[in-house]
């Protein structure tokens, strides 16, 4: 109602001095911009269909303001209302699983390349803190490795023919 009141209240404009206050018009007043201020009553609306578009303009502008306000306001109470019913939930879950089956059948997963040579270790500290191997095992490993190293060192090539052969290269 306050909005309607200020809409028709001409004397307020002198006090406004361009600053917005509670009497500031929310809409640009199409009526006061024209030299002739037409007065409407309910009979005019009934008899003259030309005035109807103006009315709808105003209505749509008001609706727009209402919508903008609604999108800018954080209404916590209204957030709760968007709860799914149990049967809706089950129904949708079923739909998703069947659609997913189809999608998987038609589109195969891209082959995963190994991103890293090393494997991720979820809890590295556990691995690092784990008990070290026993002295016997360590001995066994070191002797085995040293024997293996010695064996590799002794590998020799026994050649039965000359390893370097002279081709008949003309001098």
């Amino acid at each position: 109602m306050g909005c309607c009141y200020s809409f028709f209240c001409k004397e307020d404009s002198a006090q406004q001095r361009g600053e917005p206050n509670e009497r500031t018009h929310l809409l640009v007043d199409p009526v006061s911009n024209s030299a002739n201020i037409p007065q409407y009553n309910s009979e005019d609306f009934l008899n003259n269909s030309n005035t109807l578009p103006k009315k709808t303009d105003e209505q749509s502008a008001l609706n727009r303001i209402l919508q903008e306000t609604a999108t800018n306001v954080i209404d916590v109470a209204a957030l709760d209302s968007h709860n799914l019913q149990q049967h809706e939930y089950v129904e949708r879950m079923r739909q998703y699983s069947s659609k997913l089956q189809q999608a998987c059948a038609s589109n195969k997963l891209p082959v995963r390349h190994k991103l890293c040579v090393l494997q991720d270790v979820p809890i590295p500290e556990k691995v690092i803190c784990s008990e070290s191997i026993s002295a016997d095992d360590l001995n066994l490993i070191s002797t085995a490795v040293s024997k293996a190293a010695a064996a590799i060192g002794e590998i020799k090539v026994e050649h039965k023919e000359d390893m370097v052969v002279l081709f008949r290269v003309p001098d």
Partner: protein
Amino acid sequence: MEELRKVLLDLLSKVSGLYCVLITDRDGVPVLKVLTDKAPDLATRPSFLSTFGLAIDQGSKLGLGKAKTLICTYSQYQIIQINKLPLIISFIASDTSNTGHILGLEKYIDPLLVNLTLAVADTQ
């Protein structure tokens, strides 16, 4: 489908303390999920999971901008949700779990989302 589930199960073992990974639509209806026994039941319900979408929408009105990831830490759990509209990825983990490791899982999930998005987009 089993292949997708297996990828998610692999992810669970990659990060210690990660209890579940859920990929849901914006109303919290799961499209794909893997859970361990330790996953808290309440946090896997749609009413909780869908709050993320609302929080992101409403939070943008506060001037935070359109957030991509939401990390909530509680006394026992942490919940990390990533916006992949029309999908939401939710991770539920222990509060001591490494948040950075969990965020790093996003790159493993991204290739799966094509099929999942198809399933959701057709239905809605």
